[in-house]
């Protein structure tokens, strides 16, 4: 193991372990006002009039008329209003905020608000869409010719559902307007996203807005864009509050029902096979965006780029659309569009292999991309593709081949078993030229006269350990003890914009910038003097430029790789499925801290198993999310997957710090395909087409196959 990979005591361990870490809800509420949102009960309606109850002294309400700048939350496209405009577009669309002295009073007042609506026809189902927010198309080779020459053409449709981030700490924000400046702090991944959004909504210059991250109780993408919306709403209220802070802390039901979650998907795959090999894919992808676009454009881009999986498919045609429905806007969740398409491509490959009478893993091996091959977007896999070795590792840990053979034989009795495997990648960092053209990350190191060094970045530690890993990189290059280097929660008045904490980019991209900054500081180091160094993003030289209009070029500089096997035991009496074992090999390059990286892999792997099975979320006939609590939206507990094993495989990335590449999202992405493949085997080899797969789904399938 490299020295840098050796685990250290995490920088934030002590404060969190002792209960002393201050999350947004832990700020004293003395003198603060409480805000509560009043939301649309209709999926689509015109807002006619608002009737406020008699407001006690000091209580007030804000709506779109109080937005001093533009009533738009700056995300990617700026269509999400701060407060609903003339219409509401989903159940939960915020119309106004009531502000009162305490939680009870505010809740009472919010309940007493009467809003007159004229209900309008709503679109609730992804299949009924009328508005297409984004429509992308790309390809390579000659798919049409390949389909004409094929021996056999397969066509299958796949569906995936919502997934809720279910971070343990709900969303929360506190805003205060004093001396001409708006200060906002709360639970978030991206302080500068929040900063830009508030400046636009209030019509303030950037220097009049200050955003600070509080210790954040998990994000998983759910705190990428949503905090910008909540922060704008809270800041508008604070602007009217006469200098008092306004705090808005969601309860669990509000959080689960009305904040962004993973896009449900509908993917149609047409696959041409000739001489036992896949020669072409024609892929059509639909993502359900909900009522507004938020991050759908970029989620869809990542999803469609991954649509042909880890395979080298010479002829490809991919179309992807993100469509509007009158449901809660969907957004970022670990994997960012890729889990949906990986489920589809891995499952269609399994089904074709079965039809051809070939072991699925062997079939996949015959199609795997290798170093030097073209990617789906005619870029290049510049670095070794370690999948063959990783397959070996997972086979050794799981006994995949022997079990697969064993469970293929006709099974009898109450309990049936199955094992499945899937292969995937995660493109490391932003898609395309986002880093170079939009983010333009800047990092700084501040050396104090006493020799201590502060890492100045806008990265947020949301549990993934970034304070520790970034500090380790700097301490290592400066050759100083780790306790001489520190990194605080970001404050936009204090740190430069090193970009958001998303896309598995922080360690790979910002970490490398800090490594270079540390080398610079080392070269200039003068004992006893205060010094500051700065470093700016520069795209690696080897990149084939990416053109988003054509989806052509290197969508990512490099890839993290994964292979996972899942073994299930299915009870044919109750439909209950139990994970007997889950084995994953993950390549994220060099681990900057082995414990931290393994913790990321284990946590993400388990989220993937939840996404495959128990994590069911749906809307009712009116478009309302039905599963809005931990009683109705079940996430895995400590007893659900006792045997979950992670193997780290290291394929170094020369342009990442010490060989590290993107890590955080990887472990979740391809898990459902392995799970569903295991389920198919346990259910007499039936073909399945959706995830998550519930106990009820199992019962239904059992009626058909037994």
């Amino acid at each position, binding site marked *: 193991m490299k020295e840098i990979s050796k*685990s250290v*005591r*995490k920088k*934030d*361990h*002590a*404060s*969190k*372990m*002792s*209960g*002393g*870490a*201050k*999350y947004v*809800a*832990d700020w*004293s*509420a003395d003198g603060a006002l409480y805000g509560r949102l009043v939301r649309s009960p209709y999926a689509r309606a015109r807002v006619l009039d608002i009737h406020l109850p008699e407001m006690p002294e000091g209580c007030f309400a804000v709506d779109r008329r109080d937005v001093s700048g533009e009533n738009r939350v700056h995300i990617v496209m700026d269509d999400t209003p701060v407060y609903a405009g003339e219409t509401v577009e989903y159940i939960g669309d915020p119309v106004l905020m009531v502000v009162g002295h305490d939680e009870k009073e505010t809740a009472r007042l919010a309940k007493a608000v009467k809003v007159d609506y004229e209900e309008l026809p709503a679109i609730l189902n992804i299949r009924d869409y009328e508005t297409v927010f984004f429509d992308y198309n790309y390809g390579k080779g000659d798919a049409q010719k390949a389909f004409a020459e094929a021996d056999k053409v397969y066509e299958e449709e796949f569906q995936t559902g919502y997934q809720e*981030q*279910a*971070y*343990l*700490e*709900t969303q929360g924000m506190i805003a205060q307007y004093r001396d001409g400046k708006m200060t906002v702090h709360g639970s978030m991944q991206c302080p500068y996203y929040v900063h830009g959004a508030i400046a636009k909504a209030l019509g303030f210059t950037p220097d009049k807005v200050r955003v600070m991250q509080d*210790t*954040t*109780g*998990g*994000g*998983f993408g759910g705190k990428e864009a949503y905090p910008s919306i909540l922060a704008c709403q809270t800041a508008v209220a604070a602007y009217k509050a006469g200098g008092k802070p306004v705090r808005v802390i969601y*309860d*669990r039901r509000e959080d689960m029902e009305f904040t962004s979650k993973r896009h449900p998907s509908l993917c149609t795959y047409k696959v041409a096979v000739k001489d036992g090999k896949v020669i072409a894919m024609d892929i059509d992808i639909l993502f359900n965006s909900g009522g507004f676009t938020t991050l759908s454009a970029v989620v869809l881009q990542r999803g469609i780029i991954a649509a042909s999986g880890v395979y080298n498919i010479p002829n490809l045609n991919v179309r992807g659309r993100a469509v509007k429905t009158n449901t809660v806007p969907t957004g970022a969740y670990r994997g960012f569009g890729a889990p949906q398409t990986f489920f589809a491509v891995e499952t269609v490959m399994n089904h074709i292999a079965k039809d051809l009478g070939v072991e699925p893993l062997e079939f996949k091996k015959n199609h795997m991309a290798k170093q030097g091959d073209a990617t789906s977007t005619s870029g290049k896999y510049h670095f070794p593709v370690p999948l063959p070795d990783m397959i070996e590792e997972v086979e050794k840990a799981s006994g995949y081949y022997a079990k697969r053979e064993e469970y293929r034989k006709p099974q009898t009795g109450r309990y049936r078993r199955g094992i499945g495997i899937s292969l995937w990648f995660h493109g490391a960092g932003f898609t395309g030229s986002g880093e170079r053209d939009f983010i333009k990350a800047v990092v700084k190191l501040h050396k104090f006269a006493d020799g201590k060094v502060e890492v100045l970045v806008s990265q947020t530690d*949301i*549990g*993934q*350990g970034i304070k520790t890993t970034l500090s380790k990189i700097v301490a290592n290059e400066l050759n100083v003890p780790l306790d001489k280097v520190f990194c605080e929660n970001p404050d936009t008045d204090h740190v430069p914009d090193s970009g958001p904490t998303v896309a598995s980019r922080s360690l790979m991209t910002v970490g490398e910038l800090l490594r270079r900054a540390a080398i610079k500081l080392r070269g200039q180091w003068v004992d006893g003097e205060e010094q500051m160094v700065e470093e700016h993003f520069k795209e690696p030289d080897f990149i084939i430029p990416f053109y988003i209009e054509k989806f052509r070029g290197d969508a990512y500089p490099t890839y993290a790789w994964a292979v996972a096997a899942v073994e299930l035991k299915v009870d044919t009496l109750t439909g209950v499925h139990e994970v007997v074992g889950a084995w994953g090999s993950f390549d994220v390059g060099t681990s900057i*801290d082995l*414990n*931290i990286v*393994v*913790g990321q892999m*284990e*946590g*993400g*792997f*388990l*989220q993937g198993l939840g996404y495959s099975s128990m994590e069911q979320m749906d809307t009712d006939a009116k478009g309302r999310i039905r599963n809005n*609590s*931990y*009683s109705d939206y079940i*996430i895995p*507990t*400590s*007893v659900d*997957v*006792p045997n*979950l094993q*992670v193997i780290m495989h290291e394929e170094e990335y020369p342009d990442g710090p010490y060989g590290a590449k993107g890590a955080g999202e990887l472990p979740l992405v391809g898990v459902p395909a392995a799970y569903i493949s295991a389920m198919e085997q346990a259910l007499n080899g039936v073909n399945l087409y959706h995830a998550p797969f519930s106990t009820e789904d199992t019962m239904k399938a059992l009626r058909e196959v037994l």
Partner: protein
Amino acid sequence: MADSMTFILNGKETVYSGSATARLLDVLRNEYNLTGVKCGCKEGECGACSVILDGRLVNSCMTAMGRVAGSGVVTIEGYRETERFKALDKAYASVSAVQCGFCIPGMVLASECILSKNAHPTEEEIREGISGNLCRCTGYNAIVKAIGIAAKEGDGLW
């Protein structure tokens, strides 16, 4: 005039004169400023608000103040002063079992309740013992490992 009641909070006799139907969670956080007790769901599902009530792990969101009269309540703020906490602290740190940290105060008190009942639990018993405490970050392996390490290294403390 409202009656008052007495309970032992982190080892100190404490007089409480508010409503008997108030949630222990709200009282601990708002009246006594014990913000290490986290609110994750307020419906008894997540375990983030776990405290020890007379030696047993309870969800403070599901406990009315009336139930607490005459009882002993231990929160992370009290527990962190103990030798047992030090053993758990060291063990959790050694495997980096703390990620976002929001479940951790409850998880630490759950660890104490496992070990105070059974100083040498099996892995299965550990998993059972924390099954009422949700963690979304870790996948639980590191936490389970940490409790096992604390049991071994802190031999004699429990």
